[in-house]
C-alpha cells in the first residue's frame, strides 16, 4: 500500500513539474501556472492509480483527461474564465505517451537498419508501441473534447 502511494505521489510530482514547465512555454499567466501544476499532478495521480489497479494505459489516460477537464472547466471557470480550458489541456500534456513513441521510433529504425535481425519480434513490438501511442493520444484528446462538449462550454 505504501509502495503504491509512493509510486502515485512520485508520478504526480513529475506530472506537476511537466505541466507547469509547459505552462511557461505556452505563456500561461503566473496564477494559471499553479493550476497547470495541480492539473498535471491530478492527471498523473489518477492515471497511475488506475493503472496500478489493472487498467490499461489508454483507458486510464481517457478517464484522467475527462476528470481533469471536468474539474478545470467546471470549477476553475469562475476564477480563470475561458483560460480554464487551457489549464485542462496543459494538465493533460504530461500524459502524452512519449515512452511508447520512443519505442516505436527505435523499432522503426531497427527495422530499416542494414543487417537487421529478429525482424518478426521487432515488428510486433513496434506496431504495438505505435498503436498504444495512437490510442492513448486519442483517449486524451477524446477525454478533453467530450468533457468540454458535455459542459457546453462558453468561450467568452
Amino acid at each position, binding site marked *: 500500500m505504501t509502495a503504491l502511494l509512493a509510486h502515485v505521489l512520485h508520478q504526480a510530482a513529475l506530472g506537476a*513539474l*511537466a505541466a507547469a*514547465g509547459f505552462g*511557461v*512555454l505556452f505563456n500561461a499567466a503566473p496564477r494559471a501556472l499553479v493550476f497547470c501544476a495541480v492539473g498535471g499532478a491530478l492527471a498523473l495521480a489518477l492515471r497511475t492509480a488506475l493503472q496500478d489497479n489493472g487498467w490499461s494505459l489508454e483507458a486510464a489516460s481517457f478517464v484522467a483527461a475527462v476528470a481533469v477537464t471536468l474539474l478545470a472547466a467546471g470549477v476553475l471557470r469562475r476564477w480563470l474564465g475561458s483560460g480554464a480550458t*487551457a489549464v485542462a489541456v496543459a494538465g493533460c500534456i504530461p500524459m502524452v505517451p512519449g*515512452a511508447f*513513441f520512443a519505442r516505436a521510433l527505435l523499432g522503426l529504425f531497427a527495422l530499416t537498419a542494414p543487417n537487421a535481425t529478429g525482424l518478426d519480434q521487432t515488428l510486433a513490438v513496434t506496431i504495438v508501441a505505435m498503436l498504444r501511442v495512437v490510442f492513448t493520444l486519442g483517449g486524451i484528446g477524446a477525454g478533453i473534447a467530450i468533457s468540454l462538449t458535455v459542459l457546453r462550454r462558453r*468561450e467568452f
Partner: protein
Amino acid sequence: MQSGSNGRVIHECGALLARSQGVDLLGLRVGYASTSITLGRDGNSITRMVTVAGHGVNHRLDQAVRALVREAAASGMAPVDIGSRLDALVRDTPRYPGWLVAIAVGVACAAFAGLFGADQRAMLATLLASGIGQSLRQIMHRHGINVFVIVAAVALLSAFLGGLGARLDGSGTVDLALFGATLLLVPGVPATNAQVDVVDGFPTLGSARAVSVLMVMVFVAVGIWLAQMLLGMQT
C-alpha cells in the same frame, strides 16, 4: 489561430464582433492557412480573406484577445479602434524571458523523462539538453526559419546532447535521455485542437492540424535518427 485557439473560438469571435457592428449576414470560413469572412447589411456585402501568419501557443495573448472581443462586442467599439487595440495586445502582452522558458522547458522534459523511467543522471542530461534545444529554437524562430527545419535541428541537437550527456555521466538509461530531451517539440496543443476541431464540426481544419502534427513528429524522428547515428547507437 496564431495563439493556439481552436476553430470554434475563432467562429465565436467573428460572430460576436459582427453582431456588435449591426451585421445581418455573416459567413465565416476558418482554415489552417487563411480565414475568410463575408459580412452583409442592407443588401450590401463584402468578403475579405486574411492569411494566418503562423501557428503557436500563447495563452496570455489568447485570453487578452478574447477579453477585447467581449469588450468590443458589449460597447460597439469602432473597427479601427479594435484594430489598434489588437495591435497593442500583440505588441505588449507580457512573455516570460527566454532564459526562464529554457529552464522551464528543461525541467518539464526532465520530469517527462522521469515519468518514462529515466534515472537521475539521465534526467539531469535531459534537463540541460532540452534547455539548450529550446534556446536554439528561440534563436532560429527569431530568424524566421521554416518551422519544420527548426524542429529537425532542435531534435538533433537536443537528442545528441541528451544522449551524450547521459552516456558521459554513466546513466543506465541513455536512450530515455535522448528521447526525453526532444519532448519540448511534441505538439500537444495542436494535437488536442485537431480532435476538438473535428468534434466541434470543423473537420477540414482538424485534419490540417493533424497532418501538421504528423509532419512535426516525422521531423522529430529525423533529428533523433541523426543524433543516434552521431552517437553510434544505430545498429
